[in-house]
């Protein structure tokens, strides 16, 4: 009751009283740090933009902490209100591996090139999970966060890129599990993993991100304008899985590889198998796939930049 009366008086006072004392104590901490705070002081010129727009690296650097928080938000939200919590990060890849092994390894007897099928398929699942999850997440990222687009300014590229980067963390967890299985396998065989695994992965992992964003950025922008893509993306991911050597060795496609390698993940997954398992690799396929990935990425990036100024109008 007392709160109500207080509220009433406050509303009346609003108009005539110089508001003061109650807030004075908060304002005592007078700020002398305003110089270094917030974004760098700069002049902003706002005018209609047309055509292709360059990427503002400096601005993105200024906002880098926001990028970190966007990623961390998605990470920390993921397993909230689950009983198993972060354990899901371990269970999910293991379950996928088991399902694939049962269906494709045991059931369809797909060749696993002399390795146990779980070891073989996991090497493909690592990049595939990063790609497929990252692609779906980034494609939907803008429409799912419309309120951000219409209420505040920040580099728009952060939204889809952060959504995809979240899955790098998942990949690291999966890679840890895989490393255990993999080293155990080598130990039982009395062999050791090859030295080129790490340098190759240093090329392949960034290339997987390039492939993911190569499709993800453009799809994110398109989904803002045409919600149809929201329904198309799951099919796209499904189709891509069948034309990528996730659960089968790349050599099975025989002479079709130059065409299939236009799918960036074809050559990349083949590359992972070479890097991790030392299986013969098709350098031509990796070259074609890398080239398409980079090409699509550049196109996607510029398409995104070109259209981002309209996001808030359509969102």
């Amino acid at each position, binding site marked *: 009751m007392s709160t109500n009366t207080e509220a009433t008086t406050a509303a009346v006072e609003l108009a005539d009283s110089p*508001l003061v004392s109650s807030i004075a104590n908060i304002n005592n901490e007078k700020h002398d740090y305003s110089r270094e*705070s917030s974004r760098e002081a700069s002049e902003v010129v706002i005018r209609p933009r047309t055509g292709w727009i360059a990427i503002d690296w400096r601005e993105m650097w200024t906002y880098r902490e926001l990028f970190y928080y966007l990623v961390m938000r998605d990470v920390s939200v993921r397993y909230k209100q689950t009983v198993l919590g972060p354990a899901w990060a371990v269970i999910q890849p293991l379950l996928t591996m088991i399902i694939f092994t049962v269906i494709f390894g045991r059931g369809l007897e797909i060749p696993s090139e002399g390795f146990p099928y779980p070891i073989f398929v996991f090497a493909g699942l690592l990049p595939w999970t990063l790609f497929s999850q990252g692609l779906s997440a980034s494609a939907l990222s803008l429409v799912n966060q419309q309120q951000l687009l219409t209420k505040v*300014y920040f580099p728009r590229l952060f939204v889809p890129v952060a959504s995809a980067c979240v899955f790098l963390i998942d990949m690291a967890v999966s890679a840890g599990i895989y490393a255990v299985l993999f080293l155990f396998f080598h130990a039982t065989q009395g062999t050791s993993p090859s030295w080129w695994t790490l340098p190759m992965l240093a090329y392949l992992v960034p290339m997987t991100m390039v492939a993911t964003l190569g499709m993800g950025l453009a799809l994110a922008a398109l989904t803002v*304008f*045409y919600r*149809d893509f929201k329904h198309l993306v799951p099919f796209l991911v499904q189709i891509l899985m069948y034309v990528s050597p996730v659960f089968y060795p790349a050599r099975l496609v025989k002479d079709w590889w130059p065409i299939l390698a236009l799918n960036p993940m074809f050559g990349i997954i083949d590359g992972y198998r070479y890097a991790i398992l030392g299986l013969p690799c098709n350098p031509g396929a990796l070259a074609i796939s890398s080239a398409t990935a980079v090409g699509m990425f550049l196109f996607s990036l510029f398409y995104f930049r070109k259209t981002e100024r309209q996001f808030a109008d359509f969102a």
Partner: protein
Amino acid sequence: MSEAIITADRLGKRYILGEHLGSSPPMLREVVAHRLREMRGLLTGVRREKPRGEEFWALKDVSFEVRPGEVVGLVGRNGAGKSTLLKVLSRIVDPTTGMARLRGRVASLLEVGTGFHQELTGRENIYMNGTILGMRKAEIDRKFDAIVAFSEIEEFLDTPVKRYSSGMYVRLAFAVAAHLEPEILIVDEVLAVGDATFQKKCLGKMQDVASGDGRTILFVSHNMGAMAQLCDRGILLEHGRITADGPVRNAIEKYLQANADHRSARATFPIDPSKASQVISMEIRPVGGDKPTVQYSCDESFVVRVEYEIRSQVGGTRFWFTVLNLEGIRVFFSEFRDADSEISTRLKPGRHTFEITFPPRLLAEGTYVIDVAVDREFVGLIDHHANCCEFTLRDMIPQRTDRPGFFSTLLPWKLVDTTAAL
């Protein structure tokens, strides 16, 4: 005089009706069909005007300059372009024409709690929201305790905000925003939420920000009282154009007068079943009369008659109205518990009509407008109609006209001593 910190030069923003403002974005099918028609046009050499929707200029030729330290209020009806202008200046949407230049760090506050995530705790959301609004992590670290103290939610800092009451949520969001230290602060109607005490605190903080460090503020509100109090300068927008720019009281007065045609002694409001309670209608009539009337003498009583609908019984709901003069100053506030403090516990869902009688000789001569609203403790406004009804008071006795002040109350001048014989 120092150089302008904000310069807007013939800003314009065009929307194509049906394309942007339609309820849903265009279907892919329509776009494909459109492109095909275009291609066919190219092939056949028949150039047709693009089948576009109707044009709508949300902003047109908007030019103004703001000096450092000025606090500028944007006034105008809904849809006059205030929010669009703030969005353009915040770089959220691109202008269609013209140019604007902002010299200094900008922070925009177009919504309460932008970037808040329901699943994150209060602590996490302070960092999330703070960085989105443009603060550095180090800066938030430093101000963290002040933010928490301002929000008054210490105990719930590690609770996900989805468990917060709406009041707590708003407090937390405001606390973060209040600690921004940009050179230019752009604020949309965000003060409409939250309970009055907290609103007052925020206004105070904003005012402190403005006068303390000479910060520049661009401010939109339908609360003319807050506007008059906070701003030195007012810009009136009508149909996307600036129609007045000068001292804030002039802008407010012009705004309220310009809308006089839209007001009368009676207003009815559209039914909105999504609201828990709402105002159905309001009218001002003479005592014993049944026709809405605008003009009264200062010596007569008149009745404000308000009809409310309560849809779901909710505790803490409050029906009230404020009377404002043409300068936008709230001269009077009244609520339904003034006569009967227990009334809220007795009202059941349904329609309720109240008659509030104004005694003679309360308010001074002049024209007044009424804001009517329903709000709820800790939630904020549920239904609010600004400037919906109008009435004018005239003093019929010549010696009493044109008096300064807010009241027309006659005080008893009692002669208690005199040297002359009576």
